[in-house]
């Protein structure tokens, strides 16, 4: 399908497409309103925040309604796919946006004069991320990545007076620009060679080109194209060795922003990655009767190596950190590694791949990850507000001054480690199940070893906060009901998976989301 046809289809289909696009439109409207407010009211956090909250909640409700309606189709002539997968990530990202707005309420994050800008960037990034998860066209894909990245650059440098924020955003933008250039180049190779940018069509053509009469033929241009696109995505995922921006940016940016990037950005990138990889691999696998061929095998192995290196690197490097945000950045990298594992396993297993029982683990993990990682960053932000430091050396004996925050932090960090009965354990358990089931034993061993490695630095933080002697004259945190509610919610969420039904429910949702993934 070329663009002229696309235009034709879009024209004929614009009404229903827009209906399916309502949640995003709601976000767009909110952004516009915020910009208008910015014009008329120069200062004031409350209005902007309220608008952002309302906007994101409305978008969330719309997304929920659409999820309930169960719409599964391509819209805008094959630019975007609305399927269970999209619905899931919409809900995920919008819910996260709501929580983020709630969190800014607790931490008084944006200065009053910048409030509207902040929320515009936040919602704008969210919009881009939603598009990342739903795009099935290379052009759309590129635009979505840019739409998610550009506001993120701004958010990273939002603390304008801070030298570190400036440096962080500079690094982010330079690295990001480079990565997007490389990705675009890869797209040009892929789309040009196969004559289409529509992912499912592209995948089918690739399958045709691979399965020739002379056996399996793999063109270098195909490999280069796929890989360069993957590099662009890996940058967003912060997979080693494309992760270098991540610790510096998290370190320099505000903790709230770091939390946003670590969850939403990573989630969207993983959504994109798995959609891209699965869509590409499926027709190839299909063409060979679901026997492994060199292309999928190589892709799987590359992803697996990437995953193993990323997880191990993240966990080992985190050990030496003293800045909490930086430590959590490495933890984020490590978790990205964990989440890459099932994607590799999904396409690398022999036999008809059941994506619904392999990739859904990523979705499952992301949900859990949201609750534990956002919680950790929120605690860091609140403690920063209370003691003015994010350095571990100032965290000594915090339990005596800020018991709730400390207990919450303990729950989040242990959940990140994967200690039962916390949700993080369940998520990791499911990854291990997939790895075992698909026969990726070495990756399983890496994952398990990493669980042990990670314990060192997570517990190091807890040790400082709980066992060590208090730092003198640490001010106590003034709690308020909203903050308590926020943390209680997150803590409960971290325990909730073992309540009968919750695990099943969540798993049904994620399985359903992946099962309805529109494949060629």
């Amino acid at each position, binding site marked *: 399908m070329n663009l002229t046809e696309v235009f034709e289809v879009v024209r004929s289909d614009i009404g229903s497409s827009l209906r399916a696009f309502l949640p995003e439109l709601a976000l767009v409207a909110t952004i516009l309103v915020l910009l208008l407010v910015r014009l008329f009211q120069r200062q004031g956090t409350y209005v902007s925040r309220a608008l952002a909250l309302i906007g994101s909640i409305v978008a969330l409700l719309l997304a929920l309604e659409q999820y309930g309606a169960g719409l599964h189709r391509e819209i805008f002539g094959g630019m975007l796919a609305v399927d269970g997968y999209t619905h899931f990530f919409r809900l995920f990202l919008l819910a996260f946006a709501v929580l983020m707005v709630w969190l800014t309420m607790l931490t008084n994050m944006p200065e009053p004069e910048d409030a509207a800008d902040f929320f515009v960037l936040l919602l704008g990034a969210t919009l881009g991320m939603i598009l990342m998860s739903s795009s099935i066209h290379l052009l759309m894909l590129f635009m979505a990545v840019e739409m998610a990245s550009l506001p993120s650059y701004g958010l990273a440098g939002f603390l304008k007076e801070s030298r570190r924020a400036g440096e962080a955003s500079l690094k982010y933008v330079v690295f990001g620009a480079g990565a997007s250039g490389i990705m675009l180049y890869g797209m040009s190779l892929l789309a040009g060679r196969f004559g289409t940018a529509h992912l499912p069509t592209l995948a089918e053509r690739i399958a045709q080109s691979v399965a020739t009469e002379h056996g399996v033929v793999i063109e270098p241009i195909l490999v280069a194209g796929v890989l360069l696109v993957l590099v662009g995505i890996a940058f967003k995922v912060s997979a080693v060795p494309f992760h270098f921006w991540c610790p510096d940016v998290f370190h320099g940016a505000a903790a709230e922003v770091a939390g946003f990037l670590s969850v939403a950005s990573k989630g969207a990138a993983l959504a994109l990655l798995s959609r891209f990889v699965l869509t590409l691999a499926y027709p190839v696998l299909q063409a060979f009767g679901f026997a492994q061929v060199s292309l999928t095998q190589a892709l799987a192995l590359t992803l697996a190596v990437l995953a193993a290196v990323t997880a191990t690197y993240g966990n080992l490097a985190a050990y030496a950190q003293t800045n909490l945000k930086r430590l959590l950045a490495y933890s984020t990298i490590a978790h990205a590694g964990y989440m890459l594992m099932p994607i590799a396993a999904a396409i690398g297993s022999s036999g008809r791949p059941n994506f619904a029982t392999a990739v859904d683990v990523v979705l499952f993990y992301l949900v859990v990850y949201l609750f534990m990682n956002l919680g950790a960053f929120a605690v860091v932000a609140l403690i920063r507000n209370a003691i003015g430091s994010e350095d571990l050396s100032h965290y000594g004996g915090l339990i005596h001054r800020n018991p709730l925050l400390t207990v919450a932090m303990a729950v989040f960090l242990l959940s990140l480690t994967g*200690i039962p009965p916390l949700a993080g354990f369940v998520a990791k358990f499911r990854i291990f199940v997939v790895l*075992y089931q698909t026969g990726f034993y070495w990756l399983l061993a890496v994952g398990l070893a990493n669980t*042990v490695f990670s314990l*060192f630095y997570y517990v190091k933080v807890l040790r400082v906060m709980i*066992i060590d002697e208090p730092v003198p004259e640490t001010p106590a945190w003034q709690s308020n009901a909203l903050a308590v509610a926020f943390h209680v919610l997150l803590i409960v969420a971290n325990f909730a998976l*073992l309540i009968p039904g919750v695990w*099943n429910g969540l798993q049904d949702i994620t399985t359903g989301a992946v099962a309805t993934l529109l494949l060629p």
Partner: protein
Amino acid sequence: MSDTILLSAIVFLPAVAALILVAVPGRQKELIKQISFATTVLVFLLTLVLLAQYFELRDPATGSWPTLAERAAAAREQDLPNDLVVRYPWISAFGVEYYLGVDGISLPLVVLTGFISMLAMLASWGIDKYVRGYCILFLLLVTGMMGTFVALDFFLFYVFWELMLLPMYFLIGIWGAPSRVEADGRVRGGPYAAIKFFIYTLVGSVLILVAILALYFHPAEPGAGPAYTFDIMRLHSIAQQAGVYSLGFQLLIFVLLYIGFAIKVPVFPFHTWLPDAHVEAPTPISMILAGILLKMGGYGFIRLAYPIAPEAAHYLAWFIAGIGVWNILYGALAAMAQTDFKKLVAYSSISHMGYVMLGFGVWTLMGDPDKWSMAMNGAMFQMIAHGISSPAMFFAVGVIYDRIHHRDLNRMGGLANIMPYYAGISAIIFFAGMGLPGLCGFIGEVFTVLGSWQFSRLLAVLAASGVILTAGYILWTLQRVFLGRPSPEMFGEGHHGDPNALPDLSVREWVIAVPMVIMAVVLGVYPDLVFRFMEPSVTQLIQDLTQTLAQAR
């Protein structure tokens, strides 16, 4: 009382109490301790009720019990009110069940857990630092331990197994000794010991997790699809069919489980966390550690490793028994050279747990299975006996530490005159540890050694020679603490006082010590009290295992 409520209450009552304590103001230390103690007493009483209920299960005509496997299978169809098996679907995505049950193997350990946690809570009265946090963690720990012993779903077992890691970490880390630098520049102390404990156990449990996955996906019959089960009883029955689990697979499973459980027992060379953890932990936590936590390893062997991988267990019998004997001798020798009272007791634990491994390991098809049954029963009894004598020994150490603030054996002496009752109680306790007939330690040791003779004369002789070393270090310890004249440097740094004015046991200390002493004597004189309900289950297990292996051959 329905068994669902009873078993669930035993497991979760402490956790509920911990939740309640969250709402109690931290200032009210006495109230918090009272609530915690009342909870542990209640839990102990409930375990006794459980014991009574178990006896009601006995078929009066034959005097035998329906096996756990039978009860579990029946419970799959229909939940009977008094079969002491609880079975509800929990996570249907993975077939995980809320699945608890007891038999003669787990029941003594459950009662022991109730007993020791009650006394340990009482011993915690002296804790004055962050009482609320302490009690909450303590109660969570009890939940974890109870759950581990009654869980029949492997996933659930794993959750409970890990659940007690965290409370233990903090209990040792916060309430243990502060960090310090040793003479040779090494950092030691509560935080160090706590993380060491944590990591050792986590490494072990990660391996257990792999075994769980491997079993979950292994076919239940040759050629069939994956079994998809975490049901421990089902896994037993699968393992009992010849040819389902190949020897290679069993070896894999067994080695994974072995490392996981051996760390807990602890078996050489995975033992070094134990002396550290004990030395740094506060007295009640040492009691729990020695009394119950170590038993979880042994329980894992008898409940999981052996029935699920019988061929591998038999294949590795020499290794297990040998390492058990090595543990006995190594622990005893290491204990002999210690000057830290608590470290000595910790190494004695390592030595004593060696008998447990020996008792498990001495499986030979050549001989009479009843002899292995004797060794296995001896090993199980050793766990119970050690579960009483060892906490008591740690308690004895704690009593003197509270008074003189150090544990250096060379700076004590003469306490027999100064604290005669304490000396008397301690002597009984240490004699129980030494394996003196008439006290509980004797039964386990002697039955294990007797049962192991047919397996290997060499190992039996070596194990028997352990009694000499044990007598040596225990008596030497008693001498250094109680006999002779008081040391002029009786008090630790920064403490002063008149050695002759040291107070004897307080009322609370009496209340803690006497039950343990009584149990040590009662079990030593009349072990049938435990054997009566433990032996049928153990013997049944041994019959099953022997039969399985005979089929496999």
